[in-house]
Each structure stands twice: as structure tokens, then as C-alpha cells.
């Protein structure tokens, strides 16, 4: 059984097997994806213990929801990332971010990698990179801060020192532009 699980090549197959009750399949998923997903959680949470708890909760939820996943919905990697992001954002908002910025050892994230610079050399899919590149700078920065660092409307406003209404409007216009630019084919 275990050798059969280990030979399953795709994340989609492993999720299907986990949905059927195979803990070996979930373990294999963890082996393949936990470094990437923990990185996603850590960037949002900023604290290793909070990120690790969120990763744990996310894998319990992946186990419970594996049966409902279907490849028609989207890729397995995006589905897994979604669960980890929502669990981490939820955990961070329960604890409160103030604690993070009160700790001088953690800094106020000024040291976190510059998101714009990162985008320029990232491995993003072509369509997303091209369309993000065509966004107005404020819109691009807000969308990236929200997705990558898990900041809410009001947290972005505080971080950038701009009115809440501006952030809401930049994100709204950014999303509308991205939808018309990327369209229905993410690989385009």
C-alpha cells in the first residue's frame, strides 16, 4: 500500500487517495508540499510557531476536505495554498498583529523582502506577471501585500500610511483589471 502511494506522482492523485482515507497519501502530500506551504504561512504569520500551528490546522482541514476536491475546480497546488493561507490569516487575526510589531526582535517587517523587487524576478506565470506589471503601482503593491503577507484592507492602509478608502478602491480596480487582463486562461 505504502509503496503504491509513494509512486503516485501527482498532487491531485494524492489528494484523491487521502480523500479515500489513506493517511500515507496525506503524509506524502506533506513531504512534497510542506516546505512550500510553510513558507507561505511563515510569510503571512511572521512567527514560526504561529505558522507551524496554522500549517497543522491546514493539513487537518486538507484531510477532512480531500474528498470534496476535484481537478475541475483548479490545480491541487492552488487549492492547498488557499487552505493554508486562509488558516494562517485567520490565526494571525485572532492573535492580533500588534504582538508581532511590539517585538523588537521581529522588526516591523521593513526587512521583509521588497515585494516589488521580488515580483520583477519571480517565477510567476507569464500572464499574471505581465498583468501585474501593467497595473498602476499602488494597485499592484496592494494586491501583492494582501496575497503574500495576508494583510487586510485596514492593515495595508496602516502599512502604507494612506486612507482606507484609497486601499479599497485600488484593490477593487486592481482586481477588475487583472480579471480583464488574465481572462479565463491562467497560462495565456
Amino acid at each position: 500500500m505504502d509503496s503504491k502511494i509513494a509512486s503516485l506522482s501527482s498532487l491531485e492523485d494524492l489528494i484523491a487517495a487521502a480523500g479515500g482515507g489513506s493517511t500515507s497519501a496525506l503524509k506524502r502530500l506533506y513531504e512534497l508540499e510542506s516546505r512550500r506551504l510553510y513558507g507561505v504561512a511563515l510569510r503571512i504569520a511572521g512567527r514560526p510557531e504561529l505558522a507551524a500551528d496554522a500549517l497543522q490546522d491546514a493539513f487537518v482541514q486538507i484531510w477532512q476536505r480531500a474528498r470534496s476536491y476535484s481537478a475541475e475546480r483548479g490545480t491541487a497546488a492552488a487549492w492547498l495554498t488557499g487552505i493554508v493561507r486562509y488558516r494562517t490569516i485567520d490565526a494571525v487575526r485572532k492573535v492580533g498583529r500588534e504582538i508581532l510589531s511590539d517585538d523588537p526582535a521581529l522588526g516591523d517587517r521593513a526587512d521583509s523582502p521588497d515585494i516589488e523587487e521580488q515580483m520583477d524576478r519571480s517565477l510567476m506565470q507569464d500572464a499574471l506577471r505581465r498583468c501585474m506589471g501593467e497595473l498602476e503601482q499602488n494597485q499592484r503593491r496592494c494586491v501583492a501585500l494582501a496575497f503574500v503577507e495576508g494583510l487586510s484592507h485596514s492593515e495595508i492602509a496602516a502599512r502604507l500610511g494612506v486612507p482606507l478608502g484609497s486601499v479599497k478602491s485600488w484593490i477593487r480596480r486592481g482586481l477588475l483589471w487583472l480579471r480583464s487582463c488574465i481572462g479565463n486562461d491562467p497560462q495565456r
Partner: protein
Amino acid sequence: MIPSDSEELHVLAGEYVLGVLEPEVMNELALAAGSNPALSLAIAYWEERLHGLSRLALPADPPPQTWARIAERIAVPAMPARRIGLWNCLGFWRGSAALATAVAASLALYIALAPRPAALRFVAVLHSPQQEPAAWIATAVGNGLLLRAVASVAAPGDRSFELWAIGPSGGAPKALGVVPANGQLEIGALPEALEDGATLAISIEPKAGSPAGRPTGPVVFLGRLNTVRP
């Protein structure tokens, strides 16, 4: 609350996926997506289209004990090997979710035939989401409810099981009570009558129950409620 206009729906779904909305709105949308296919598709659209941005987070090694903790949390409680009458008969309770309704029906028959003082009005068989053998049975007792473990189940460490009811058309779960360590929860009077087709769920919560008025830990057992007319 959920816009029907496609453009507005996509903006709202996009804001949800970015995670910029207030926690209450995030929760509301997560629940609504379960019964709103257009919303669910719009969320999947953005999860897929924006996924490339997650590569801006650099991979890192999670703490070494993380998998062991996950494995502990998804472990299915072992079934007892003892057999004492029908309630504890393994063979009787084993079965897939497809059989759950049949099991509930036969249980109802069994109880209807057995001399019992209280009028029976509903029964629910609760399984783990992975459809393992039945673990709990809930039956109506007077205006209340009796929940009892039919498998040997124990909440991990310093935690408790808490019972919840979710209406047939969804909505926020209502807390029914924390299950005592002996695996038997008796509720004298329900806060409101349970409806046919409602779902009972058991989650893992802090010892004294969820502090938030909603499940905060994983839901580990679920079962649909079937009304029984004697």
C-alpha cells in the same frame, strides 16, 4: 449579501481570496460558498489566477514535530473489542456512510420495538468525515437529546468534544454542549427543536468548550438527523 452581478461577485471573491476582508465577512463568505456555486467558482478562479504570487514566499522547513502532530490529530480513535449487546456490537455499527441511513433506520426500529419511556422522534448516527464506523448515536429524549459514544473515543489531551447542530439549509452551528469524559451527553431541553435533515457535528475544543460560540477546532464526527415517526 452575495451579489448576483458577475463583476461584483468577482470583486468580492477576489477580495476574499486576497484576504483583505474583515474576519466576520471572510467567515460568512466561506460558509456561503458551500451552497452558492457561482461564488465558489469565482473563488476558485482567483485562487488559480493569483496562485503565482505565492511564489514570492520562500520555502522553509517547518518544525520537525509538525507532521507527528498532524498524524495524531487525524488518527481515527480505535474501536473497542468488547461486545455487550446491540449497542456495543461492532458488526452492527460498522459500515460506510451510504449505510448510515439504513443503520439509523434499523436503530429506530430497534428502539421503537424496545420498551422505552420517552417518545422517540429522531436519531442521528455520527461518523468521522472519513466515513469510519459509527462512533456516536444521538436520540431524542423528551424535549432533549441523549448522545452516547458507541466506539471508544477520547478527545486528545486537555481537550473536549463539543456537540453542535447545523440546520438543514446550513447557517451558523449552534452549540449544544460539551461531552463529558464518560462519552455520554444528556441535554434535558434543547434550546430549540432540531429539524429533520439537520446535521449534528462534534468538534475538538478547549476543555470547557469553544470560547467563540462556534467550532474553533476540527470537526471530527458528523451525522445527519433523521426524524422517526413511531
